[in-house]
């Protein structure tokens, strides 16, 4: 890493409600889960900016706005060309995609709505964020289980290289009944997919230089990130295991993903053998199987726990496709 990189903003919307207070209340067991229909999106963002957008673009834009406000960057971005946005998603704009296919399959394909198509592409959410908040630097969507960690890694590289100074990074996914049905045959805990709708979580990553110049409040520092590609069989064969770079990092707590399937659980176990099971905080029960949304909430929770007695925490994600990610975060120390 060429530059020190810090986290200066957090924003989220999901089963727990919207914003940091709701999130913390939910973690502490003081708040009940909400359903997707409980949200009045107009109360969070000017939805005229999101006309015809899919619900994932709405959720992502709201979470991004919260993160920008938290970082004191909302309507306050000085150099928009040094500002980037990276959004992870597995299923993208599912609601629009299904509507679009209805037109393709059941109606005349030549009559599909142009806005339905343009808002169902995978980078629709990050494009909305770029358009609404006037972000002219690097933008990308990262499709993938483990995509939020991959997005963080990409942002760390871009800031580290000086391409951009600040980057909005997050994940967005929203479950529906079709996904519940499709995944119920391949994951171990069928209830994990059905009990949460998902949502979106965003962070503001920033070079320390930029954050210091702005006198921004710093929540945490990114100390390292490692991503390897191996299923359990390969991890054994090539003698690699997820999180191998951080075994000696003296972490206080490891936040782990939902155990999606048997293979990813076994890979997670390979890591836990080295670090000790007493340090584990499994996030599966809290956030369910909501793909990049759960992953972003897991990272945000890791950051928030640094306010407690923790000095260093690890966010680990072993995904269905064999992507294994470990993000090491520490308290910011001048």
């Amino acid at each position: 890493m060429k530059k020190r990189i810090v986290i200066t903003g957090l924003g989220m919307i999901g089963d727990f409600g919207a914003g940091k207070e709701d999130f913390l209340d939910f973690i502490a067991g003081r708040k009940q889960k909400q359903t997707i229909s409980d949200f009045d999106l107009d109360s969070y963002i000017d939805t005229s900016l999101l006309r015809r957008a899919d619900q994932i673009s709405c959720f992502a834009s709201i979470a991004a706005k919260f993160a920008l406000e938290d970082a004191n960057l909302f309507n306050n971005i000085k150099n928009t060309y040094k500002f980037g946005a990276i959004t992870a998603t597995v299923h993208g704009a599912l609601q629009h995609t299904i509507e679009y296919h209805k037109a393709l399959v059941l109606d005349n394909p030549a009559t599909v709505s142009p806005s339905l198509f343009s808002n169902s592409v995978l980078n629709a959410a990050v494009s909305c964020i770029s358009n609404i908040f006037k972000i002219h630097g690097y933008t990308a969507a990262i499709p993938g289980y483990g995509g939020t960690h991959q997005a963080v890694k990409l942002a760390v590289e871009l800031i580290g290289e000086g391409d951009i100074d600040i980057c909005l990074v997050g994940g967005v996914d929203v479950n529906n009944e079709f996904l519940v049905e499709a995944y119920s045959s391949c994951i171990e805990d069928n209830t994990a997919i059905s009990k949460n709708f998902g949502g979106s979580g965003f962070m503001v990553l920033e070079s320390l230089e930029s954050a210091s110049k702005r006198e921004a409040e710093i929540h945490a520092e990114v100390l390292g990130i490692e991503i390897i590609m191996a299923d359990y069989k390969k991890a054994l064969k090539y003698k690699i295991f997820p999180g191998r770079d951080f075994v000696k990092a003296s972490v206080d707590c490891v936040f782990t993903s939902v155990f999606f399937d048997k293979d990813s659980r076994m890979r997670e176990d390979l890591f836990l053998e080295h670090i000790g099971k007493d340090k584990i905080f499994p996030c599966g029960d809290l956030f369910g199987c909501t793909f990049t949304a759960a992953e972003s909430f897991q990272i945000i929770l890791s950051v928030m726990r640094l306010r407690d007695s923790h000095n260093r925490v690890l966010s680990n994600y072993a995904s269905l496709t064999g992507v294994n990610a470990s993000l090491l975060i520490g308290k910011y120390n001048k």
Partner: protein
Amino acid sequence: MKKRVVITGIGLLTPLGRGISSNEEALRNSRTGISHIKSFNTSRYKSCLGAEVDNLWIDQDFPEYADRASKLLLTSCRDALKSAALLIRDEDGLEAPIILGTTLGGMLSGQEYHRNLLLGINSEKRSAVLRDSLACHQAPYIANRLNLIGEALVINNACASGLNAIGCAFKRLRSGEAEIAVAGGYDTMSDFTHAGFSSLELITADKCRPFDKNRSGLVLGEGAGILILEEMSHALRRKVNIFAEIIGYGQSADAYHITKPDPEAQGASRAIEKAINDAGILPEEIDYVNAHGTGTMTNDSMETKALHLALKEYGAKVPVSSTKPMTGHLLGAAGSVEAIFSVIAINSGIIPENLNYGTSDPECKLNIVTGRSRNCELKTVLSNSFGFGGSNSAILIRKFEKKGL
């Protein structure tokens, strides 16, 4: 000090053929791969034109359920690794990242999934079909098949995805994070994209004529373009053939509209300027521009403006052509295939023709390569890619020279 990054392997599967030689022949002779679409029923569309990859060119050793996207991709990746003389032994694996760009991943499986879902059939197979449809499925699938154990990363910037994947890999190698990387893009033809682009009235039923006054839209295509990128000293140690060097990359966002490009071309010109500054060269050192050139009214006038803004007066002089009238618009593969075409142009000394160009447009005052391909010694080529959502990227590729070693 930044490391130098070279191209040591190429895998190319386009409507023009498989491999460098068939594509080079097509570029030299201005042969098009566009014809009537065979893979789906086009009777209800205004246009039946598309550029498809012949099934005979694709490797056949796939499980029954494998999506066409995985097939195009794995075929190209194998060719790329082979041309880079990289034989990955099963017992070792190769710790190299695979970074890919795609717009829709396995959309043909996606269509099957949604069709079955809406018609209530084949429910027991839905999860497998859904998995194959995801844009995040193909990269890990290929990594597993080829024993690649670095990160499998997918980047999506719509039609700029392939070039941004190469840009990302380029930066990782240059910073020393990896010594070797597999990078590129892929996409397949589908009803989904044809209907979508038709709905936006971007598809022409006529010929694709980039930068022509009478241009009326694009033609979609499919394919895959894969590069093996390598840190130069690593490649020299392996004594492997070096196709070319990547010297600069730039990316920006329009922050303007979800489908339309910024007509003032601020974002696109910024991406080109960033690539030039990144490479540390002067605009006049660029010998040829392989344009994004889709053949739509908005893109081509915007790209012209971007070239004038970024290259100043040289923008009207540098030879420019779009190869999309030959390949169709390959979406997520467009950027990587056109980067490979830039390498072919450098190594074979030809500037491809901007096919079907007939009438100059005052909105597109460029030095368009017309009539036939040009023989010309080329050293440095700029390749542009722009995508929905206002994503802009540009890359600079140079003839490899050992100077300074």
